[in-house]
């Protein structure tokens, strides 16, 4: 059987014993993990790390962490470009990334393309390895399972496979050809959740994308949360726990933390502000000034929120999300 391999670089180590050695020493203590955004970004991410972001582009994203990565000028990061839109746009604005597993990065879906992200990719500054959304989901799932790969039946026969770092294998049972997707163990992941306790036992409502696997696959995990809830509440409905404490290293309460993205059942995306990003990005100088004002010139996420309408804006976005603006 003619078994092919992709020609590009595999940015992360898929070896499950190396991952186990790391997880062997990861704390299992059920202790408070409360911290601040500044402290989490300072201590949990170092230049050169490989990072992955939860949610889906501009839905349930940890904006405060993303902004702080830009503010602290994190550099040479690897990035899992899995269902990525506004998150990639922010990190490219800060020129934080130098290599990327790409499934979806420069588009913002129905809103159009990010001119800045597109310039960055077309400049050749970013080292790219192609994958797909499904593939990156399964790469995270393989890591969550403690494996080195997961077989699947997509991407074969295409240039997407050719420019990946994937390999084909022969199924030992059926003799069929499968793609063997290498496990992806990120160094760092940030996930925004609806509710969690101080230990990191977390609940997520709505479409969960790949976040359950991401929380298990990543070596260091920070949660930002709309609300801190009591552990008693977690214990009343243990079937609602989406991420357990032992996956989590840090917890920060950040209400409205997905702004300007959508947070299901809480607030809708701020389409006018996202449009402002997409418009201003067309001119690199204007974009630089915009970032100075919005991110470098604000001390934290709350100043950014105030700058863009504060609680009044959030109440409007809440009424759109709850469809009460139609009554």
């Amino acid at each position, binding site marked *: 059987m003619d078994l092919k391999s992709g020609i590009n670089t595999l940015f992360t180590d898929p070896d499950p014993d190396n991952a186990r050695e790391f997880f062997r020493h990861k704390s299992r203590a059920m202790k408070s993990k409360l911290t601040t955004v500044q402290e989490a970004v300072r201590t949990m991410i170092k230049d050169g790390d490989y990072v992955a972001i939860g949610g889906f582009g501009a839905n349930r994203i940890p904006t405060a962490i993303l902004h702080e990565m830009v503010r602290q000028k994190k550099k040479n990061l690897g990035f899992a470009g899995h269902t990525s839109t506004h998150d990639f746009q922010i990190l490219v604005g800060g020129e934080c990334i130098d290599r990327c597993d790409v499934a979806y990065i420069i588009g913002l879906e129905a809103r159009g393309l990010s001119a800045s992200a597109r310039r960055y990719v077309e400049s050749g500054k970013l080292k790219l390895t*192609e994958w*797909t959304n499904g593939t990156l989901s*399964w790469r995270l*799932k393989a890591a969550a399972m403690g494996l080195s790969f997961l077989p699947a*039946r997509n991407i074969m026969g295409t*240039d*997407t496979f050719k420019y990946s770092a994937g390999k084909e294998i022969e199924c030992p049972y059926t003799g069929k*050809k499968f793609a063997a997707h290498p496990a992806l163990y990120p160094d760092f992941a940030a996930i925004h959740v609806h509710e969690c306790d101080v230990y990191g036992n977390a609940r997520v409502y709505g479409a969960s994308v790949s976040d359950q696997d991401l929380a298990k696959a990543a070596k260091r995990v920070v949660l930002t949360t709309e609300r801190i809830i009591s552990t008693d509440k977690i214990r009343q409905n243990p079937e609602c726990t989406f991420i357990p404490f032992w996956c989590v290293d840090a917890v920060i309460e950040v209400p409205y933390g997905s702004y300007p993205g959508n947070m299901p059942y809480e607030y809708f*995306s701020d*389409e006018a502000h996202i449009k402002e990003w997409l418009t201003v990005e067309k001119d690199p100088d204007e974009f630089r000034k915009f970032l100075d004002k919005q991110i470098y010139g604000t001390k934290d996420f709350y100043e950014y929120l105030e700058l863009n309408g504060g609680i009044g804006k959030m109440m409007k976005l809440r009424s759109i999300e709850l469809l009460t603006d139609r009554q």
Partner: protein
Amino acid sequence: MADYNAMELMICVAARNLEDGATVVVGTGAPCAAAMLSQKTHSPNLTIMFEAGGVAPILPSMPISVGDSRTFHKAIMASSMPEIMETCQRGMVDYTFLGGAQIDMYGNINSTMIGKDHQKPKVRFPGSGGANDLASLCWRTMMMTVQDAKRFTDKPDFITSPGYLQGGNSRYEAGLPLGTGPYRIITNMAIMGFDAETKWMTVLSINPGYSRKDVQDNCGFELKWAQKITDTDPPHAEELRILREVVDPHRYIIGR
């Protein structure tokens, strides 16, 4: 003059191809509009899925993102990306729709880049996202697109999502699931399928106002022709009413 535009025609034709009781994974835009129209005309039990995890929502409006909260509004399930992709891989999803900058005679689609150097593309597009997965794993892939000779090319710069690859049996031989592949290409000028043996793009019907010559002149490769070429049934008044008043009242898609 026809009292509908090309986008309305493509959406109406696409909607008729989704039968009651089927499953379809859609993105934002025209595919979502086609699925909604289908539900509100002849397929009330069409199950619409979104790749971020939403299953069978009652859509209060057109989603902006395939992961936004509208995609699981009053839904049957708010699941996950692997759940949706694994449902496709298990053979439970009948249809999907793709878009792209280039398509070839075997229905292979480019939505990644223009140029020769992958690391430094002349033009970079959004990329696969979930397109390759859906094209690989759903039973039937459809595309709605405006037709011109640059877009319909025998040499796409990059194959993002698989059609019938090099034709014949090559798709299955490459490892993709048996019996899957492109089904209908719906353009402003014509409706195409694929030859059962060679898997070459084959014209089935021509839209009102266009000729055989228009269809061939606006295609960068030689098209095959079905034995009997019919006239595409244009949008019906009731389809247009529902599309304009219920599915897309703000003309986000049909106004393009």
